């Protein structure tokens, strides 16, 4: 009887070992004998929207593999690289932009891409008006004088090259399937772009699998990943373990503590690049005493910038100089900034007639964001030292935003903390959305209405389509105005920290395409 039991135990153990030996083995993060498989694990759902006109979410990491834009922007050189357009020119008044298209480019269904496809794609995106479609607002009409020439006629000068390189609302796709299957065909989980990879399989909750598109205009000579898997792995510790065990090629977000641990792994390397994302705290300038610029300046001087950067961001950030982040054109490192100075803050509050202990403020931030939470806690501790009582309230984003849009300004929060990042490589995205006068509250959550400021940035945007140097000067003036009026605390400009396998060659963290790996350009 005992022998029988022992045999059963041994058999169970052998079964487990046998099971572990079965199935495929090896690393998917590297090249196999014939197929190189790249695996990208995202912390959140990858394919939220499939329609290239509406795409405005995390699918940005997969869309550039299936679709292409007319141009691609390279912030390192501040130049546009050819993509579907090989060259472009603009008229002197900045109202006419002509793009010359690449020849012999095919969609994944085999049909030829022509200027009519470009026109149809952009016009459909504009008509639907979803996501970032506003980037084409200046476009009056699109003409197709030849099979490979597209002309954008604008109502006002605008930097259309930046729009044409945007990772949102600028994808060129085939509209023919929509005529056959209806306007929801893309949204149901189909694609028909010109990108290097085409859809192999996908369904809700399952990984997105792409395979090399044999008819890609760039060809497949040399080393390329030929299959791509995009999966959602919510747990950061699971992603870190997968990265270490070679099951992952790339992941989009890891907590700083884990990055420090992964640095010790000999098979991994860390890259740090300025991200075009910054954290700001907006004052409710419509209520007393925050309608007093002295109080706002005092509160700006009471923010512990370096402490937040060191202890919360682990040094992977720099103190902001105005709303335009480091790395994006228009950012000026010589602009003035507030420094942590509690004595100065106290003195400014005295000048404003605020007695210690009499000022109670409420700051809202997005629930679940650990960095915002920690920054708010440090700010609270700092303010307590000068007799200001801060209540930091975490809220779901929609609730936080709804409170900020309350009809009565006194019902709104005193300070609103949030991140901003541009839809495309244009500083106007920061200055217009966050500080331009609004008839109805949208994202100007400091409620800062200044017609001189509005004129400056509108002019700068117009000039950026004709004369970038002049535009930068105007943006400088506008940001100096913000420094003086202090409608917000410009806390830090974030940096992207990536941990990638050393075997991944040619990776370039382009902040114009946040979290995107251009898989065709990297080698396994």
């Amino acid at each position, binding site marked *: 009887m005992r022998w029988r039991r022992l045999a059963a135990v041994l058999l169970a153990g052998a079964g*487990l*070992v046998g*099971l*572990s030996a*079965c*199935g*495929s*083995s*090896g690393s*998917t993060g590297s090249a*196999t004998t014939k*197929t190189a*498989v790249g*695996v990208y694990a995202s912390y959140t*759902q990858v394919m*939220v*929207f499939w329609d290239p006109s*509406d795409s*405005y*979410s995390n699918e940005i990491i997969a869309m550039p593999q299936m679709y292409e834009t007319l141009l691609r922007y390279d912030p390192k050189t501040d130049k546009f690289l050819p993509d579907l357009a090989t060259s472009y020119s603009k008229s002197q008044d900045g109202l006419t932009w002509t793009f010359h298209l690449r020849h012999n480019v095919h969609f994944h269904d085999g049909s030829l891409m022509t200027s009519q496809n470009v026109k149809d794609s952009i016009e459909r995106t504009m008509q639907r*008006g*979803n*996501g*970032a479609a*506003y980037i084409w607002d200046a476009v009056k009409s699109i003409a197709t004088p030849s099979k490979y020439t597209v002309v954008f006629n604008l109502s006002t000068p605008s930097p259309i090259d930046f729009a044409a390189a945007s990772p949102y609302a600028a994808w060129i796709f085939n509209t023919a399937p929509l005529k056959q299957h209806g306007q929801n065909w893309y*949204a*149901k*989980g189909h694609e028909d772009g010109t990108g290097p990879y085409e859809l*192999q*399989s996908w*369904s*809700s*909750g*399952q*990984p997105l*699998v792409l395979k090399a598109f044999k008819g890609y205009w760039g060809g497949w000579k040399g080393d390329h990943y030929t*299959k791509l*898997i995009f*999966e*959602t*792995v*919510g*747990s950061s510790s*699971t992603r870190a*373990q*997968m990265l270490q*065990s070679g*099951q992952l090629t790339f992941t989009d977000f890891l907590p700083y503590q884990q990055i420090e641990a992964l640095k010790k792994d000999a098979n991994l390397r860390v890259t740090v690049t300025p991200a075009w994302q910054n954290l700001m705290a907006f004052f409710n300038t419509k209520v007393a005493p925050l309608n007093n610029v002295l109080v706002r300046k005092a509160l700006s001087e009471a923010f512990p910038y370096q402490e937040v950067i060191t202890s919360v961001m682990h040094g992977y950030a720099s103190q902001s100089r105005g709303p335009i982040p480091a790395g994006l054109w228009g950012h000026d490192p010589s602009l003035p900034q507030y420094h942590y100075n509690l004595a100065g803050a106290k003195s400014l509050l005295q000048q404003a007639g605020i007695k210690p202990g009499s000022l109670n403020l409420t700051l809202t931030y997005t629930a*679940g964001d650990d960095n915002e939470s920690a920054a708010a806690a440090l700010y609270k501790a700092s303010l307590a030292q000068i007799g200001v009582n801060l209540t930091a309230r975490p809220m*779901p*984003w*929609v*609730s936080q*935003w*709804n409170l900020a849009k309350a009809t009565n300004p006194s019902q709104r929060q005193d300070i609103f903390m949030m991140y901003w990042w541009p*839809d495309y490589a244009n500083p106007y995205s920061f200055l217009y*959305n966050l500080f331009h006068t609004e008839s*109805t509250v*949208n*994202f100007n959550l400091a409620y800062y209405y200044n017609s001189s400021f509005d004129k400056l940035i509108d002019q700068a945007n117009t000039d950026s389509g004709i004369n970038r140097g002049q535009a930068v000067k105007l943006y400088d003036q506008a940001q100096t105005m913000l420094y003086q009026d202090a409608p917000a605390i410009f806390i830090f400009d974030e940096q992207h920290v990536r941990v990638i396998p050393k075997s991944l060659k040619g990776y370039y963290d382009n902040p114009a395409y946040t979290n995107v790996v251009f898989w065709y350009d990297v080698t396994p």
Partner: protein
Amino acid sequence: MLHFFVRRVLLGVLVLIGLSVLTFIITRVAPGDPAALWVGPRASVAQIERATVTLGLNRPLPVQYAIYMDDLAHGNLGLSIETHRPVSSEIASYLPASLELVVSGIVIAILLGLPLGVLAAMRPGGVFDAVARLLAVLSVSVPTFWLAFLLQIVFFKDLGLLPLAGRVSNLVIALDPITRITGFMTVDSLLQGNWVAFFSALRHLVLPAVTIAAYPFGLIVRMVRASLLDVIALDHVRLLRALGQKRYTIAFRYALKNALPPTLTVIALTFAYSLTGTFLVESVFNWPGLGNYTAQAVITNNYPAVMGVTIVIGVIYVVLNLVVDLVIAGIDPRVRYV
């Protein structure tokens, strides 16, 4: 028996209608603007207003509920606020993953828990009973996420025997993909004769299924032991013993039948609860199941998805309870007349 069945079905329908009213009211009065979520984080006021009309959110609540129920009667659970895709197809995509996991977990729990409970009851107070009770208490009280991490550390990191997470390996996804038939990867790969995929799916299933099994295992051991101890003390069992029947025959063939009804009820409730209650296990093992989907829906205020999941789980609860009631009625005729 027919009367019993009809009465149970009608009660189930009433429960579902009540559930739909409750979830509809709760999701609509919860803070947040679904129209703002529908159009995305940076929408203009005009876009939000347009979405409000598109989604019918400008209509009175009773009208919205009537439309929802009409759609529901036609199998339409609405569109996801987050992805704009039909909730029914999204649930259909996530549900099989959870079912495969929970069914495997419950089967493991029954296969181990049932005999262990019986054996413990046969020698109450003995060493085996003490060990069984200790195991039962441990498996019920251990936090599932902790157990999940522990299993990962031992079987993936230290021993390298089993995979860390996911339903199949990425090599299988890329090179030997499974065509979806039932959505159960082990079943689908078998049906297609894809052995590489089958073993990969089986290996990936072991750790999460064992984690899921822990809680019902403990419950089953305790329930079976307690119920059997009650039954063993009854006269008819003592008579069987006096007639010379073997102890194991009495326990498994005669006494267990009487001790099963409360255990079956607990298993059914645990099963339905596990479908959405396994969020932590699904999260640690990156298992794309209904728990993950529901958690994401709650976080993003995706009310059609929350309502859809609630209705689906409600139906599963009602159906399972009905089946269990019928089984118990089959085992114990007294139940039919209650």
